[in-house]
């Protein structure tokens, strides 16, 4: 009986400690950003808003996998708790030396294997193949080059001629020409547009060519179910299609140095006409700056 009392006492202590944490939990943190971000971001074990055409496939896979995990855990947990209660040591109770022939466990293991094969071969591999190999044709897609650096995302648009200008590391100037665009030497570079925010069209496939100037970053669009490491020395395309307009975030998902956490950019998903207007505005020669 004494044991039971002490357990109750422990539970009370624990509850008190949890309760002491609750006020802190409720404490709100002021938002750091002045631009309102669209979308819902999970408060309790849910994925963020999905504004992409194909993201639901990944979501489904995650949901099905979690359902499978939950079934396994709950079923297995019921048996576990049953054993803990039923076979506790007490007077008159003895352990059995003989081992049970646990056929169910074999079935369980085979079932786990089969479900895993289904999840892998039936869902994951086709999604992965489509993400990697089914790049939309160049004439249909809106193409942006994304160049990561410590600690900013640089977005490079080809401009009206549709051709990306030549880039040269020696021409990089952190303030005025972070892309190292050869504006003097290459005619295609003259009309290229550089921005620190990502503007993309809605309902049109977008291809982003991800690269990095210095260390490894990771281009992460939570609402688009897109993540791709930005590796220096490589230019890796990813593609997606937005189905909803709004303002969202571009995150860096790979530790890239001291200010990794502030390497955020904004992503504006716009109707094609708005996007064109923005690009036109951006493409104009910069105005003289007057204080």
């Amino acid at each position, binding site marked *: 009986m004494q044991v039971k009392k002490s357990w109750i006492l422990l539970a009370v202590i624990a509850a008190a400690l949890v309760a002491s944490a609750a006020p802190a939990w409720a404490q709100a943190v002021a938002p750091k950003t002045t631009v309102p971000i669209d979308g819902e971001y999970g408060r309790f074990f849910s994925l963020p808003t999905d504004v992409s055409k194909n993201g639901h496939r990944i979501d489904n896979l995650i949901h099905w996998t979690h359902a499978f995990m939950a079934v396994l855990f709950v079923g297995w947990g019921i048996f576990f708790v049953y054993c803990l209660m039923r076979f506790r040591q007490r007077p008159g109770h003895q352990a059995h030396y003989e081992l049970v022939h646990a056929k169910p466990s074999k079935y369980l293991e085979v079932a786990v294997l089969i479900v895993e094969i289904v999840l892998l071969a039936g869902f994951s591999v086709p999604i992965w193949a489509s993400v990697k190999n089914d790049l939309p044709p160049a004439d249909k897609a809106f193409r942006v080059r994304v160049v990561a650096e410590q600690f900013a995302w640089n977005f490079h648009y080809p401009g009206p001629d549709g051709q990306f200008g030549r*880039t*040269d590391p020696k021409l990089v100037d952190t303030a005025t020409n972070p892309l190292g665009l050869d504006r003097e*030497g290459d005619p295609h570079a003259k009309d290229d547009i550089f921005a620190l925010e990502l503007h993309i069209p809605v309902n049109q496939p977008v291809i982003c060519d991800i690269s990095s100037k210095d260390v490894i970053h990771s281009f992460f669009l939570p609402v688009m179910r897109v993540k791709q490491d930005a590796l220096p020395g490589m*230019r890796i395309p990813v593609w997606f299609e937005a189905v909803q307009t709004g303002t969202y975030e571009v995150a860096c998902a790979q530790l890239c140095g001291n200010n990794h956490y502030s390497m955020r950019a904004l992503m504006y998903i716009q109707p094609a006409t708005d996007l064109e207007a923005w690009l036109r505005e951006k493409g104009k020669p910069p105005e003289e700056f007057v204080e």
Partner: protein
Amino acid sequence: MAGAHADISKHKRAYYAVFAALAVLTVVTVAVAQFHFSDVGNVAVALAIAAFKASLVAAIFMHLKWEKAPSIWWALAICGIFFIALLALPVLTNSDNPPQVQHTMWDVRAGAAPAAHTSH
């Protein structure tokens, strides 16, 4: 492993024979390298000779020919498998890039002189 003196004397002859073989093969591998078969061919020949030499060293000098201890063989077998994995999988991974991946991030090399006008 037998410790009798007679066995050791036999071993000694094997040692000299292996030494001769190794010396000759060293000359052969240098000689063969002077000819150019093909990129793959040269690598294959040189590595085949090296592997043969290495197995001679392992078998005779390191007494693997007479080694019976299963534990040593197990350790070497496991090590061999992982060695192959370590050698093959990184390069296989890098060679399985999806289409349209480019192995450059600049259009002009860092070390190159500023390029003149070129048409795309």
